[in-house]
């Protein structure tokens, strides 16, 4: 199995033997960017692993899109070459429609705009609350509100679109 990874912004290629079952672990010879690396991996629980390389022991925990090793956190992306194309094309300029997204999960406590309303840059559009913390979300640009995706009382997830300004 060959994996292309981006770790803290740096691309890496890791090759694992096809016969190796990573969910069980054991001693394995990997090829990292062309170099042979021998490690002993032991899976304690799904997402918790002890890795020994050259006698050094690393306690490794999978955490969402990151791995935590000995207290330090490393952001990891698993690259899929087919999706890269799409990602490159996804950049949008200040000219197009811009969405106001929820930066955290929460409940909508106030909606400050209506469809068709003109807003200025940094004008508050929606207030969401979670864990006793209120957050007023602001328009990223001046323009007209073309969509209001939520009403008061809605529960939203992190990244959900709340309002679109064009």
């Amino acid at each position: 199995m060959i994996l292309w990874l981006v770790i803290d912004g740096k691309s890496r290629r890791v090759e694992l033997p096809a016969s190796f079952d990573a969910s069980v672990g054991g001693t394995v010879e990997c090829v990292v960017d062309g170099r042979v690396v021998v490690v002993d991996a032991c899976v304690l629980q799904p997402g918790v692993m002890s890795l020994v390389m050259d006698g050094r022991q690393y306690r490794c925990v999978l955490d969402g899109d990151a791995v935590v090793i000995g207290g330090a956190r490393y952001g990891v992306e698993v690259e899929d070459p087919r999706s890269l194309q799409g990602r490159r094309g996804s950049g949008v300029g200040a000219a197009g429609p811009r969405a106001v997204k929820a930066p955290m999960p929460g409940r909508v406590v106030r909606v400050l705009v209506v469809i068709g309303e003109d807003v200025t840059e940094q004008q508050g559009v929606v207030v969401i609350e979670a864990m006793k913390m209120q957050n007023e979300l602001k328009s990223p640009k001046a323009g007209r509100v073309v969509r209001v995706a939520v009403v008061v009382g809605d529960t939203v997830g992190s990244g959900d679109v709340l309002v679109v300004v064009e």
Partner: protein
Amino acid sequence: MKKVLIANRGEIALRVIRACREMGLATVAVYSDVDRGALHVLHADEAYRLGPAPAAESYLRGDLILEIARQSGADAVHPGYGFLSENADFAEACVAAGVTFIGPPASAMRRLGSKTMARRAADEAGMPRVPGSVTGLESVEEAQQVAAGIGYPVMLKAAAGGGGKGMRAVLRPEDLAAAYVAASSEAERSFGSGEVYLEKLIERPRHIEIQLMADEYGGCVYLGERECSVQRRHQKVIEEAPSAVVSEELRRKMGEAAVRLALAAGYVNAGTVEFLVDEEQNFFFLEMNTRLQVEHPVSEMVTGLDLVQMQLRVAMGEPLQVQQEDVRLRGHAVECRIYAEDPENNFFPSPGKITRLVQPGGPGIREDCAVYEGWVVPLDYDPMLSKLIAYGETREVAIDRMLRALEEYVIRGIKTNISLFQRILRDEDFRAGRIDTGYLERLLAREPAKLEGIVSEDKVPEDVVAVVAALFAASAAKERTSIASVGQESRWAVAGRREGLRA
């Protein structure tokens, strides 16, 4: 007292339930809809639904709570902290319903609950306080007069305040008028009362508080101090006992002043008198909290006493079994409030499902925790997941032990502020005890925050990181059955599987 209803949730509800169980008291839990699977419910003998998630429809419904007490035959209510714990009307309603309120009498709560009234009580008890007004300011003119009298900089504060709301620092006379209006209207909005008062701004103050316990017979002891100077937005983040700067002499002076205040107000049960301490070790009365506090465990560690069991015994009408001379402090304790929030992203709250939980243990570690693997942290309440407490012979040992425990701690699925604690506990100023209430904001304002505190001494080789990431990705790909359980990793799994087709 036979059966105690715990009118709270989270770690403090579990804390009280544990004390009741140890004393052979039956327990009644109450819960909102999102808390049916919470640990405080799981550990109670009885459990009753209050209502929907919002606190106003559940944990703040004193009427429902007293109805459940009646129905279940509970003869006492422990309010914990927050929610109804400082609500004098609720305390009174308990008494009227024939149920013991485990806390001070409503009269003492009222007398000490308003900051302006408490300041007058402090004066009567001969306790030093920050210079300034002891009644609400009637007008901007009165504010200007008082400020001129004590000298700038000054601080405007809401009489009914808390949590930093309705507060404004005023450095120059010309800013006072605007600040007065702003503070007063914020106080009106937040607490329903626009009453503000004014006091001298103490520069670089330390927040140090005295824990008290009083019985019904005029017995009252102080159980040492706690220092809570590490704050963010006026919220305590790390607490410790004893303070790194309080001498035996200062402790005695502050303790005796606190006891005088409590006795003068007819105070009974656990309470805390908060002080500001300036750089010359002058102490000034700040306010009194008429309830058990979040940070009570650090006092328990250094005194060897159980404050909740003491609360229960006092509420049963027993006299204190501890005299002041029996209170012996030993060692040092530090507490970290583990929150569901993201220190790398504006401290935004991070409710959600805990997919992996590995808790620290071993010597000197106590954890008051109310979450478990699989628990969905609700977005309706404060973000506290757990209180981690480390004890050691010295402050240094306690700090290093806490660092060890934080390194062991794994909480996955949601973000936590564990890395913030690692940063603070490794910071030279904190380790040297050079802290004041502005310390943490200054630390956070400092630049490349990210690596300073988080990385352990030895850097992990890049190849190790790559191999570990690859193994986790490959494992997610192969263990198709476990994708559901690892949740967040599904993106990896999908990518990994695609790769698998090519390998």
